[in-house]
């Protein structure tokens, strides 16, 4: 089994590499299961967190939710690995976790994204673009946002995006088309320097 692994370099570019999970019969030992799971978390953990942030969650919340989803997946790892597409399965679990997570802010504390003493980094352009894109994403309907992130950021196929969201493929296609049109008309993105969007 091969997994794409995304790492962000210091300059903000992605490094994409393959991680190979050991193949074998479905009923394997605990050690194999743990090794598979650990490899998957290492390969996919950060991409899952980023996807969750793009879906409108803050970074601490996203990390919390992804960990919860991964722990659920670990409990049924045999089912996960038996799935047609592991990513689609894990994203489905994550989306369910996000849906219930909205109701879990019981604790009085508010997680902040940055500690107060964190030194400021002068990355004005990156911050501006990222903020504009996230603002534009927030204006999209919840389902359209999820479709967009799964299809274009998580690189799931249309079929697997549909499976993760529990939607027909035709609905996924139409939502993608509509979401792209809405992004094109979004005022937040209209302010971006043109060279930030590759033609």
């Amino acid at each position, binding site marked *: 089994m091969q997994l794409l692994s995304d790492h962000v370099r210091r300059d903000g570019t992605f490094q994409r590499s393959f991680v190979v999970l050991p193949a074998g019969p479905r009923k394997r030992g605990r050690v194999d299961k743990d090794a598979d799971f*650990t490899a998957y978390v290492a390969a996919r953990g950060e991409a899952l967190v980023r996807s969750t942030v793009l879906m409108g969650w803050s970074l601490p919340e996203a990390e919390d939710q992804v960990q919860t989803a991964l722990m659920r997946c670990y409990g049924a790892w045999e089912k996960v690995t038996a799935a047609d597409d592991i990513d689609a399965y894990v994203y489905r679990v994550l989306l369910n976790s996000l849906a219930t997570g909205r109701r879990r802010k*019981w604790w009085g504390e508010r997680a902040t994204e940055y500690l107060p*003493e964190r030194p400021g980094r002068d990355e*004005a352009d990156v911050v501006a673009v990222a903020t504009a894109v996230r603002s534009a994403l927030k204006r999209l309907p919840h389902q359209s946002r999820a479709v967009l992130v799964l299809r274009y950021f998580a690189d799931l196929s249309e079929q697997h995006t549909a499976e993760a969201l529990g939607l027909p493929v035709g609905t996924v296609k139409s939502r993608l088309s509509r979401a792209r049109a809405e992004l094109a008309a979004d005022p937040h993105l209209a302010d971006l320097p043109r060279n930030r969007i590759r033609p």
Partner: protein
Amino acid sequence: MNESQVRELLRLAASDVATTPLDGETLIASSTRLAPRRRAVPVLLAAAVVVALGAAALTLGKVSSDVHRQSARPTTTVRTSPDSGLLPPPGTRFVAISGLAFAVPSKWATNAGRCGTAMTDTVMFGGDVRDCLQLPMPDVSALHLTRMSDSAAQEWVRRPGVRQRLNGISVKRVATRLNHALCTTGRCDLFTGALVVPERRVVMWVSSPRQTTVDEVLGSMQPVPAQYATVPNLTGQPAAKATDALRSLGLRAVSLPSCAGWADSVVRMCSDRVMRTDPSQGSVVHLGSTVGLGSSPSRFSPTTQLLSQRRLKLTVSGSSSCPYRAGSVDTGPGNRIVVHMSPAGHVVCTADLVPTSTVVPLPESVHMRSKVSLTAMVSGTAYTAVLRPRDTGPDPGVPGRYRRLVHAFYEFARAPSSAAAEVPLTGSSVQLARGPVIVGAVMRRDYADPKAWEVSLRWFRGLTGKTSALQLLASSRGRYHISVGPHATCVGPVAPVARNLRGLRRIAVQPAHVGSCIDWWSVDLFIDPRSHHVLAVSLDLWEP
């Protein structure tokens, strides 16, 4: 917008997310710890059904109303004293809010929490926590006593629950069981239960790794009898006012000697106001009892001497424009305490390398006028930082040339004209920036036109409409503060600047007096260090 453009945008947005790698082995360990309890749930449910059936069979012959009353009866037995007052069950003490008392174990501390999170078994008052840090969840029990108006109480007010009468008081009972993936201790499950009491406008909730603790504490709720009073929260009040408040409740006040022996909190303060009471806030005492008021007008704890002995240096950092100053104390190689004072009425104290962060509610007056001494425990050693109100005079660190430039720019902002623009604005154009983004430029021929300086906020810092650096500067009426170089926002990290302004000298002008950070703004002049032309003007605002 085509697919490749969307992919590129999402990639850019994701690249700004500073994730940390997840550790699969930690997740496996957490998941494994939870598994036995998950398997135990069906067994426990079956046991509960059996017990319930047995109880129902035993009480079958009784009157149904009696059965109903039994089910609502508290699980903690409350004894009544001979003078018809109340005595807590053995090993417990009473704490109260709005005339409702709860029996908690005597060893539970009061307000032993950081950032709204209980650090040990404790009773915590108030639930209006702002400017918090994320903390790992410890394996402790806590009773939270809050007003319905507190932000943290809203969750319980909204949540559906079972309405019942508890000791004659109408309540809504809410119960949940939670699992926290970020827990650092052995147990990751927390049982919680809450009582919402609309008639008293209060919400109380207990969180504990043990369901029995939740049931016992909440079940012990009862009205405080007439012969008893509840020690109020007197923190921050002048001693005379606190004494009067106690007298009006039928209690007597005595002064406690100093704050040196105060050891129930990570952060300690000594000031000319009440900083602690003995017994602590919320304690239920008999009328006529004596309550100690702890304050220390001038004496500092011995930790100040320790600081001096170790030749530790107190430096001032953070925002130089706000009336709240932040101090930091170097406590050794690579170790440092940073103390932030926020406008939300809290002091946030964080220490590098050690998981110490504390939020202590403070009255506004202490922020604004008094000198405050903060002590933090770092690796078992206490360190003290002294915070002083900011002096409002001109900053001696700003060269006179820049002070004159800012004054000329202020005069121009107050009454824009071509003549007034000639002194501060010697270049052919000035770039305008909104925070870290360049949004336009003003040409020399338009300098005198105030509209040319206007910047659309477009939800910048959650604001809309238009404003301009000239408007903001003119609103200061000449009472502004000048600083050179990078600066923080009112309460926050150093604000980034646009990339093409990085090499320029940055002169920040901010209001000298702000009641809160909502009134804060900053107009930064970016000056060419060689030609001394003002090449750009940026504005920043505090998010409401």
